[in-house]
């Protein structure tokens, strides 16, 4: 092979490397964008599905007790009575009250949960342990701190306690995953007691 060909091959290789260097970041960005769109639309679909539970219900309206932040005492919750067409099915009922809790009171200052967070799934196991799966905004948008994180969890557990007697304990997941803390402080590795304060934090016993 003469030197002319060697130079041509070298130039060809360099051109290929250069093209790859330019193209790969564009490709990476496209893949990322695609994943984001897909995730957002999934969450949107789930949110619409859950929200439609309240809108389509034919149940008569009953007085539900929801716990948002108190406007008179710092760091505490206060019950608010909201008329909702609550289902008799405990899972649907829990979804209805939690979605109303997420939507928040009229006064945005009294929100306990991030307004962009969504309930993705809710189940109740036969032993009374409920699993509530929230979108990532629940962990990412909540103000970080012991007080704010505890208030968020308390507003969920107290609202469930007041409206869904079948729930004994609550396990919180973030986007389907078990996480160590809500936003750096509150322990989400166990289940929180609901309906009976005598039931203490249940620490998972790994085998």
């Amino acid at each position, binding site marked *: 092979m003469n030197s002319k060909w060697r130079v041509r091959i070298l130039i060809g290789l360099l051109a290929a490397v250069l093209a790859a260097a330019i193209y790969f970041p564009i490709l990476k960005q496209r893949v990322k964008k695609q994943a984001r769109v897909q995730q957002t639309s999934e969450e949107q679909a789930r949110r619409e599905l859950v929200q439609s539970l309240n809108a389509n219900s034919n149940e008569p309206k009953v007085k539900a007790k929801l716990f948002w932040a108190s406007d008179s005492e*710092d*760091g505490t919750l206060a019950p608010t009575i909201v008329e909702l067409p609550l289902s008799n099915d405990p899972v649907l009922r829990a979804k209805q009250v939690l979605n109303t809790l997420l939507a928040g009171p009229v006064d945005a200052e009294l929100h306990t949960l991030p307004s962009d967070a969504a309930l993705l799934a809710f189940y109740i196991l036969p032993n009374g342990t409920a699993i509530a799966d929230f979108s990532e905004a629940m962990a990412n948008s909540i*103000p*970080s*701190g*012991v*007080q*704010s*994180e*505890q*208030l968020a*969890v308390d507003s969920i557990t107290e609202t469930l306690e007041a409206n869904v007697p079948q729930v004994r304990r609550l396990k919180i997941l973030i986007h389907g995953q078990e996480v*160590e*803390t809500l936003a*750096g*402080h*509150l*322990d989400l*590795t*166990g289940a*929180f007691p609901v309906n009976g*304060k005598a039931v*203490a*934090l249940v*620490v*998972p*016993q*790994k085998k």
Partner: protein
Amino acid sequence: MSRLLSKTILILAGAVLTGSLVARSQNPAQGLAQNSASPSRSGLNIVVLDPAHGGTDPGARGTGGIRESDIVLDLAAQLKRNLESQGFQVMQTRTTNENPSFDDRSALANAQTGAIFLTLHVSSTGLSGTVRAYTMPDMPIAQARGGLIPWDQAQAAYLPLSRKLGDAIQGELTQRFKGSPANVQTAFIRQLRTTAAPAIAIEISSVSMQDKANLDRMLPGVADAVVRGVVVFRPSYVTPAVPGVPPGARP
């Protein structure tokens, strides 16, 4: 796996050096804290300070640019000086901008004899200029197995002492910072659960202050009140009884 193994070795080495032994298995749920092999000194001698967050985790952030991870490091330095002047030995889970894991922070306290643990925080919310002390809520008392208590429930046996410590400190804080609660609060704080010592969290409100100088001005008062509370608590310190652990042995 190798990270866990190296962590276990590190904790064992640290524990052996300090004269008491904390053993961790590779499964944290089966990790167990073992009694001190050497005769334990009685009384409270050591205060472990835990400035929360750090490294890539700034903790709570205010619109005025205040970062929780920086403020708690300043508070720890002031607390250290005041505590040492009262004759306490002070250990810190971090002294620079790094972020040890929750378990590593607990491990430092769990390897000591006669220690209390204070985790330091600044919140995003709450009435500005107030300070709260927190303990864990009720936990099931863990049954020790072969003289070892489960790592995941290490705080359980210490809860009554933690409440006493929290009330002593909250009492001092409330006198100085009006609007703070009268009693120690409870919260499921991850950092406290694995700590085998009287342990509380202290949280200042808040990073939402526009001027960092206002928050900085609170720190000497917080440090002074906390140290006064620790001194009030000191005579109450006893070795708690743990089911399955012989009396006199340190859980």
